[in-house]
């Protein structure tokens, strides 16, 4: 069943949708109140990109997928995301808007780890979800898209790691859209309690090169005191999907949040990745790579905000722009008053592969405290002809030399992705996009 929605959204539709999923009353109320707010709130305004006219309202909201009985039945392009040597023990696959496959290691389950789709979580762990769902990290009323997200959220994942639990193997989600018009209003909520540690990696994939739809993604990562969360992602929505993605982390005392984001969307994308270093001695490490091609417009904001003393933030954004694509890279390190002895570092580099491509790296440091250290590096340029000469002087053809330089340029994120198959997948996507 596909239901077309467009502004203004229907209260009745949202109520029925919430009822259909047996959501708790608070969730229904949150949705309805958000729906009301979405009508009056302004759109977000990413620096230097106007997204007012982008499509965030035309799509099919509720599209059933099929249950996956066995991973062997997955099509090869989805199999590619999975490590083949050993069966993935901790895996969620979402097909369109259906939670299609779910596995969690028994030992982790016994320790109290929760790793499930958001609808199940809202039924089975309502109180836990309620405590963190758009309460600490992302607020419903930040702008129209966060409100719209809250009103119409139609899929997602809840990951909860109890106190003192260290998870060695990575947990993986695959959000697979094969309906051309299905929207993905996805909510990923990761809560890591004190002294816990977890590595999570996710893949977004769609195939709608022509048909128009949109994705509105909110990700919240809560790392409590001394918790460590390593978050990897490869976003690979097709050209027809307009993407708004908001990934936000909250780090407590001595906590560490690492992001490794491969932004490989083919359509217009506005993405922000904000880490709040709330606790003293907390650390944020935000790495992102982008390949832009065709005529897509993309805007990326990576922001680390320091509140805690001796907090340490590191931003790395590397983008490759080809054809007529344009990419704006905003890097923001903000140190609030009181965050003494903090350190904010950032590096944004854009490599242009064609004369019609546009790249813009904007390093911004906002510092309200004296006793801190900060640094930034930014560059926009082409492949260095002297580097090419050096590689070619060893017999490597120009195209291969360029390929090596580009892969090398994007390696800081590729190498950090936790699952070998995802790493390879990202390499393949990069290969496909740059050639």
């Amino acid at each position, binding site marked *: 069943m596909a239901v077309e929605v467009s502004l203004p959204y229907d209260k009745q539709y949202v109520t029925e949708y919430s009822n259909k999923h047996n959501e708790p009353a608070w969730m229904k109320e949150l949705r309805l109140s958000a729906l009301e707010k979405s009508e009056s709130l302004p759109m977000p305004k990413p620096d230097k990109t106007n997204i007012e006219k982008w499509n965030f309202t035309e799509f099919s909201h509720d599209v059933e997928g099929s249950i996956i009985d066995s991973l062997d039945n997955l099509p090869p392009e989805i199999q590619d995301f999975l490590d083949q040597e050993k069966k993935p023990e901790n895996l969620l696959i979402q097909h369109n808007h259906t939670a299609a496959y779910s596995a969690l290691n028994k030992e982790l389950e016994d320790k109290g780890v929760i790793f499930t789709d958001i609808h199940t979580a809202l039924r089975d762990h309502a109180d836990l979800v309620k405590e963190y769902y758009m309460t600490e990290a992302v607020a419903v009323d930040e702008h129209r898209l966060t409100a719209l997200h809250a009103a119409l959220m139609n899929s997602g994942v809840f990951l909860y790691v109890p106190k003192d639990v260290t998870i060695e193997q990575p947990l993986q989600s695959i959000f697979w859209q094969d309906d051309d018009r299905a929207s993905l209003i996805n909510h990923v909520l990761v809560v890591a309690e004190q002294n816990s540690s977890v590595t999570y990696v996710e893949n977004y994939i769609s195939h709608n090169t022509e048909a128009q739809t949109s994705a509105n993604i909110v990700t919240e990562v809560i790392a409590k005191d001394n918790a460590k969360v390593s978050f990897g992602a490869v976003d690979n929505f097709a050209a027809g999907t307009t993407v708004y993605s908001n990934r936000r982390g909250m780090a407590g005392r001595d906590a560490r949040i690492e992001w490794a984001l491969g932004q490989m969307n083919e359509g217009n994308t506005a993405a922000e990745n904000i880490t709040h270093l709330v606790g003293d001695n907390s650390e944020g490490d935000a790495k992102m790579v982008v390949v832009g091609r065709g005529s897509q417009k993309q805007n990326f904001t990576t922001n680390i905000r320091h509140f805690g003393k001796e907090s340490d933030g590191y931003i790395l954004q590397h983008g490759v722009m080809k054809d007529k694509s344009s990419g704006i890279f905003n890097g923001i390190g903000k140190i609030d008053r009181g965050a003494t002895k903090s350190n904010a570092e950032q590096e944004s580099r854009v490599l242009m592969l064609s004369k019609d491509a546009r790249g813009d790296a904007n390093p911004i440091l906002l510092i309200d405290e004296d006793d801190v250290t900060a640094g930034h590096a930014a560059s926009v340029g082409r492949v260095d002809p002297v580097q090419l*000469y050096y590689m*070619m*002087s*060893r*017999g490597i053809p120009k195209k291969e030399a360029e390929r*090596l*330089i580009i892969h*090398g340029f994007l*390696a800081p994120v590729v190498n950090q992705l936790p699952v070998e198959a995802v790493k390879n997948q990202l390499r393949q996507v990069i290969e496909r996009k740059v050639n």
Partner: protein
Amino acid sequence: MAGSTLEIKDLHVEIEGLEILKGVNLTINGGEFHAVMGPNGTGKSTLASAVMGHPKYEVTQGEILLDGENVLEMEVDERAQAGLFLAMQYPSEISGVTNSDFLRSAINSRREEGDEISLMKFIKQMDAKMDTLDIDKNMAQRYLNEGFSGGEKKRNEILQLMNIEPSIAILDEIDSGLDIDALKVVAKGINEMRDDKFGCLIITHYQRLLNYITPDQVHVMMQGRIVKTGGPELAQRLEEEGYDWIKEELGIEDETIGAK
């Protein structure tokens, strides 16, 4: 045939409109080691870069032939595949590309598709050469020249030389910035390459490298030309007496480019 022959005939080269080389003639045969010496600013490195095809250097006159083939019509990678190699004075740093991946790509670029060197064979070969050059094994997994010390970069150039096994190699100031121990190690690597097929052109302005690698011929460059050629004894005399006697002999007042 004993190796390849590189012929440089009446070579004139400009950089940004300024003529640097003004008619260089030089022939290197397989099995021969040549040294090009001369003070700074006389065109030695330009000669090396022009042969390899550096994008900033423009050949305005003359010929470069490798076994009779016109090198100037070849792209840089084609020159390398034809058998030329240049150990550079300032090797580029390439972030994100490991030394080992780079070297394997270079080796495979000389082989047919489907006939790539096996990983095991490659590692074995590279390890052996690294031992010869006293190179720390972890350098294989470091990014190409990134953060390498001056000495590490030079050793890495020779490591590539030994693995790629070209027919004619040009070594551009491979001795600069090396202490005496490193110099000996680098010389050892180069001497290991010596056979009746391998030809080598060593560019240096110090004689000391030639204490460890004995050249068959020594050429002196001034004002963008080769002004004198001799045997190893010429290098010895330059070491003892400097360049002034040559300038006097030839009536040259200022040996650098642009001087009359």
